[in-house]
């Protein structure tokens, strides 16, 4: 069987699949790319156990067949090809690949040695792909990194009848992004944060079809099929701990505040929680930091509200900057306690009320 494809189409599609396939694995079959040719199209598939991926693209093909070969060698060759067009001729044992002035023979493996993957057509749900990307991308930062944090290393998707919400937390801060639209399927799932990263890379324009089955979320979008293995465990009831009353709240442009915090935090002690201090009084937010190299401070005018005339709190500068990240315009930063209290502060995006973040201040006294 043979096929003609533009190099760019093959290289771009292959790049997405290759990212997922591990270059080395104790299970050698896992590092294989499977290629299926059908009438008028080529399918590339692979897996890393957490994510199964299949990419389909149209191609000028003759004959059907299934093949397997090491993903990374194939990718390197394709990326390096000199021509605009690639000619593939699959034999029993070898793939003849030529492009422009270049030709190679790549050894093929039995397709049965690659992971046996199943992609369902039972995709009852759908969401706007760019809205899903926005939701996942807005909360991803808050997911935990460390392997001992179990379910917090995932992003929770709350698929409701008329709402969809993405939530992430590492126990110190939390973010959610709320869509006022249902997907057609319902359930709470936790997707590993690394799988979320791959998903947001692949999702483009248009619609993302969704399917939920035992232990797995299936997504189809723009020629890609993904099976995302779900994490065991549940998130705690975070709604209950969002403070409702705030003695002091300030409104300020998020990028302006974020830049100021980052600037002041250059003096903060990285080994002592990267501490920056915030002090609000008379409509002025003062940010200070002190470390082994010196002291910095910056004062910003803010719209101040609340029952108390002033408040002083300290934060890990990174947590504050992260929480402000998704907001493009004004945010309301609501403080619910300081000093020895450690009640979470809340960041609300006034331009996009879908986004909300909580950050726990440092306990200082």
């Amino acid at each position, binding site marked *: 069987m043979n096929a003609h494809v533009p190099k760019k189409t093959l290289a771009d599609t292959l790049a997405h699949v290759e990212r997922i396939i591990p270059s080395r694995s104790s299970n050698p079959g896992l590092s294989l790319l499977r290629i299926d040719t059908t009438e008028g199209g080529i399918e590339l598939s692979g897996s890393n156990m957490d994510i199964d991926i299949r990419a389909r693209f149209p191609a000028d093909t003759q004959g059907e067949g299934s093949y397997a070969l090491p993903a990374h060698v194939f990718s390197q060759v394709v990326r390096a090809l000199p021509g605009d067009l690639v000619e593939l001729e699959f034999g029993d044992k070898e793939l003849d690949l030529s492009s422009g002035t270049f030709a190679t023979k790549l050894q093929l493996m039995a397709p049965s040695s690659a992971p046996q993957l199943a992609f369902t057509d039972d995709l009852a749900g759908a969401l706007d792909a760019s809205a899903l990307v926005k939701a996942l991308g807005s909360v991803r930062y808050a997911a935990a*990194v*460390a*392997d*001992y*944090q*179990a379910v917090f290393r995932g992003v929770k998707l709350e698929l409701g009848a008329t709402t969809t919400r993405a939530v992430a*937390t590492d*126990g*110190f*801060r*939390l973010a959610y992004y709320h869509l006022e639209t249902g997907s057609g399927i319902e359930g709470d799932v936790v997707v590993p944060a690394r799988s979320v990263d791959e998903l947001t890379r692949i999702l483009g324009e248009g619609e993302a079809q969704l399917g939920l089955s035992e232990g797995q979320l299936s997504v189809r979008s723009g020629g890609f099929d993904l099976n995302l293995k779900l994490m065991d*465990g*549940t*998130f*705690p*009831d*975070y709604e*209950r*701990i969002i403070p409702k009353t705030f003695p002091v709240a300030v409104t300020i442009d998020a990028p302006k505040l974020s830049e100021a915090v980052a600037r002041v935090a250059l003096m903060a002690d990285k080994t*002592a*929680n990267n*501490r920056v201090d915030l002090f609000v009084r008379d409509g002025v937010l003062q940010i200070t930091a002190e470390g082994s190299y010196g002291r910095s401070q910056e004062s910003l005018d803010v719209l101040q509200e609340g029952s108390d005339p002033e408040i002083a709190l*300290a934060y*890990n500068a990174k947590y504050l900057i992260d929480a402000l990240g998704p907001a493009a315009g004004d945010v309301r930063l609501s403080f619910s306690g300081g000093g020895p209290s*450690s*009640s*979470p502060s809340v960041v609300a995006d006034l331009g996009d009320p879908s986004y909300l973040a*909580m950050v*726990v*201040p*440092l*306990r*200082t006294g």
Partner: protein
Amino acid sequence: MEAVRKIVHVDMDAFYAAVEQRDDAALRGRPVAVGGSGTRGVVMTASYEARRFGVGSAMPTARALRLCPELVVVPPRFDAYRRASAEIHAVFTSITDLVEPLALDEAYLDVTEPKRGPASATLLARAIKADIRRATGLTASAGVSTGKFLAKVASGYRKPDGLTVIPPERAQAFLDGLAVERFHGVGPRTAERLHAAGLRTGADLRGADPAALEALLGKLGRFLFDIANGIDERPVVADRPRKSLGAETTFPHDLHRREELEPVLEDLCQEVAGRLERAGLTARTVTVKLRTADFKVVTRSRTLPGDVSDAAGLGAVAAVLAFEVDRPQGAVRLLGVTVSGLRPRALQVVQPTLPFPAEPS
């Protein structure tokens, strides 16, 4: 012969209670006990107002309340005591590096060659007391002498806010007149045995046969004989900062299964967390040690982005290290948990967690 040493023993007056009275004006002048208020609560420290009613340390709170119905019982705030203790320690180290803390509220100082201040140990002790008062608003009692034992006896001689000096020429007379119960290491049982042997005072101990004393009390007998003779060469050992602390356990029979090892690991983390709490420290690095049945020792460490000190936090990391990082196959004979990267709690800010409800929704 070596030059005569100058040792100061500083003991804070009713430390925990004094901190509470300092921080809460409503408690000043009133009988206060720091301790547990429940039915099994015990008084940790009583203020001098409470001591007049006979309330003392280690007394059940219920009994203390019977002795003194006016008594205000407040729960301990160790963070506040640690902060005050750090301030006091800073005063000590401004005078000498030879500081041996015995507790949060008590330390020996060797001021034979002080870094600053007058050469007279008496004047130095007065300066230390004044500095502590300026830094913390609290009073201390100090004892000055040529050895640790006499310095400690001296600091307890007049409290609160006392300063007692036992100069070398008065040391022997002082020791001779001291009841045996006042000697270090002599509790009620030992005192009984000494009394039975006809020994009631320091003078009796000094005149006793050292071999007979040793036969009666073992090593303590020799120690008491030396002390009573004015021989107390024990150096003031500066407290080197601890680098690590840990706990380990060897199993009576080898364990194979994760379900058997998990509770052991939890207990070890519990113990390490308890030690951290008592020492007022947090840790940055967790190490798990495993010895297999064939005596292979494997250690796995993880340095965390933030400080941990609680059993749950330690346990989560330790479990990953013990069970999920490529563990050697086979039965386990020994399991240990060690923490390092230690820092005092009082001197740091803490990143608290979100107040999630204990049970997942």
